């Protein structure tokens, strides 16, 4: 991939080329916002399995990938989406039924792990979790760690402060870097080379993007010229990190995309309802994902009215009048 080339492609090809069985993956967004849902659905549709997924609180996308059986191992801080699912339903089932291996961290720790990966260092320190079971209980065994070169040999390391009591700190927890094989994020604007502009909170997308060996960007608006260079202060990810750029309007649907559209409460509630029963969930997967050819197909079946309901007020970035009860 030439760094300075035109990287525009389509979602089917990008997922097929980069998201391979057994790959280590991370996805952007947080709970019900800016998840790269079109890409998540495409991964499910292509039935890519045995994925090692890294998540802080990525929420909806995680639950659907887990539910569809794509995930073998999951390093995660939070499997929930807030009000819609205080605990992600398929995630919970999969863990309780031991269908996936799981290892727990905190949100900050997962974010630091991506940051370490993006910085090219093996670990970063924090004071979070000292004295807790996040330190004592490992989800991935030492044996698995020894046998798996893409997993570090320890979950984390507690280190006495080598600078005495500097910063009034006795010891710190070192969390190991993550360099996913692939990171997929959804952004409001990207250009042909892969410069990205995110409006609203960036969550940990920037660190996830820069830590990845391959970065796939899906975007609401695709610019085939250098327009984004007119305001470089707002471009959080420069093109040198990008490998594929895909134009997918409503690419975060049914999660929200600040400034563009809100989450769809109808979809998310229906999802929660159907996720609760295995048979219903299979129906959900069939109707909403497998039987659809593309994200556009899904949007067509959702229909214009619901998409209009979630359209963001331009001054607020969300749909003020949306009925969320």
């Amino acid at each position, binding site marked *: 991939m030439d760094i300075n080339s035109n990287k525009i492609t389509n979602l089917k090809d990008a997922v097929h080329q980069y998201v391979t069985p057994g790959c280590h993956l991370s996805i952007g967004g947080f709970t019900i916002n800016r998840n790269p849902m079109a890409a998540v659905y495409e991964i499910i549709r292509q039935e890519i399995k045995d994925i090692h997924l890294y998540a802080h609180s990525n929420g909806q996308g995680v639950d659907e990938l887990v539910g569809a059986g794509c995930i073998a191992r999951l390093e995660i801080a939070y499997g929930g989406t807030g009000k819609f699912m205080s605990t992600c339903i398929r995630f919970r089932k999969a863990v309780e039924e031991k269908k996936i291996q799981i290892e727990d961290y905190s949100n900050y720790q997962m974010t630091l792990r991506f940051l370490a990966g993006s910085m090219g260092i093996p670990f970063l320190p924090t004071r979070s979790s000292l004295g807790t*079971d996040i330190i004592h209980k490992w989800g991935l065994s030492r044996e698995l760690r020894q046998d798996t070169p893409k997993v570090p040999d320890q979950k984390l390391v507690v280190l006495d402060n080598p600078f005495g009591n500097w910063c009034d700190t006795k010891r710190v927890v070192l969390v190991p870097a993550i360099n996913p094989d692939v990171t997929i994020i959804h952004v409001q604007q990207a250009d042909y080379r892969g410069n990205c502009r995110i409006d609203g909170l960036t969550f940990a997308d920037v660190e996830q993007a820069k830590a990845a060996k391959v970065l796939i960007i899906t975007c609401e608006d695709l610019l085939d010229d250098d327009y984004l260079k007119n305001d470089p202060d707002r471009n959080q990810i420069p093109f040198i990190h990008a490998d594929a750029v895909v134009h997918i309007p409503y690419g975060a649907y049914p999660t929200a995309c600040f400034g563009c559209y809100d989450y769809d409460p109808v979809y998310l509630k229906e999802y929660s309802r159907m996720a609760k029963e295995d048979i219903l969930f299979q129906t959900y997967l069939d109707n909403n994902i497998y039987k659809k050819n593309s994200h556009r197909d899904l949007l067509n079946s959702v229909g214009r009215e619901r998409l209009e309901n979630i359209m963001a007020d331009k001054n607020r970035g969300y749909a003020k009048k949306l009925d969320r009860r």
Partner: protein
Amino acid sequence: MEYTLKEMMTLVAAREIRNNDIVFCGTGISMLAAMAAKNINAPQSVIFFETGAIDSKLEDLPLAVADSRIMYQSSSNAGLLEAFATMQNQITGAHIVGILGAAQIDIYGNLNSTVIGDYDEPDVRFSGSGGACDVASFVSRTIIFMTQEKRKFKTRLDYLTSPGYLDGPGARKKAGLPGGGPDKVVTNMGVMAFDDVTCQMYLKGYYPGITPENILENMEFHIDISRASEVLPPTPEELTLLRETCDPQRLIL
């Protein structure tokens, strides 16, 4: 004025928030408590989310800490790194009060939001830490929402997700943790605080119509009830602001 227990809990937590506090809140009732404090008793308090927004306008109630509603008219929109650094930073962290919830709590205010049963063979899996462990590790004090049930107030946690006072006096410091630890536990029956010397939970208040004994019956461990008094019920002004300004659509209440 009539009120629900959820309203009572929200307002009791809100009363713990002071002007000049920076309030970390999660989803649901904790967010509502922070909004209530800002609209009722602590207008100068600042609301803050782990996702990176600070001082959000909150014209409408968010349903998640990543809801676009928190991004509108905040003082700064950043990301998780900045948010957690603000808590771990002792200069700013000293101003932060965190509001948390959990599946289990013990007498030292340690929290479990990960599993019931064995970690490797869980009977019930919950969401996991999210930012809770970070908040509980870093900030000056925390307020914890709990439902008053025996299976939730546990002698021994199945998994320690978020640190309270660990195993007692000096334990946080010994472990290397910064921050202050739990300040209050707000339940549907009363309010607990923590003893300055023993770091153990004690009953501080019980709601009208509830007795300290009722509360003890709904806990696996025993706490001191000698310092308890009845909590003032919500005032009409509190209730009106909570219902009409904070959650008019009754999304949480």
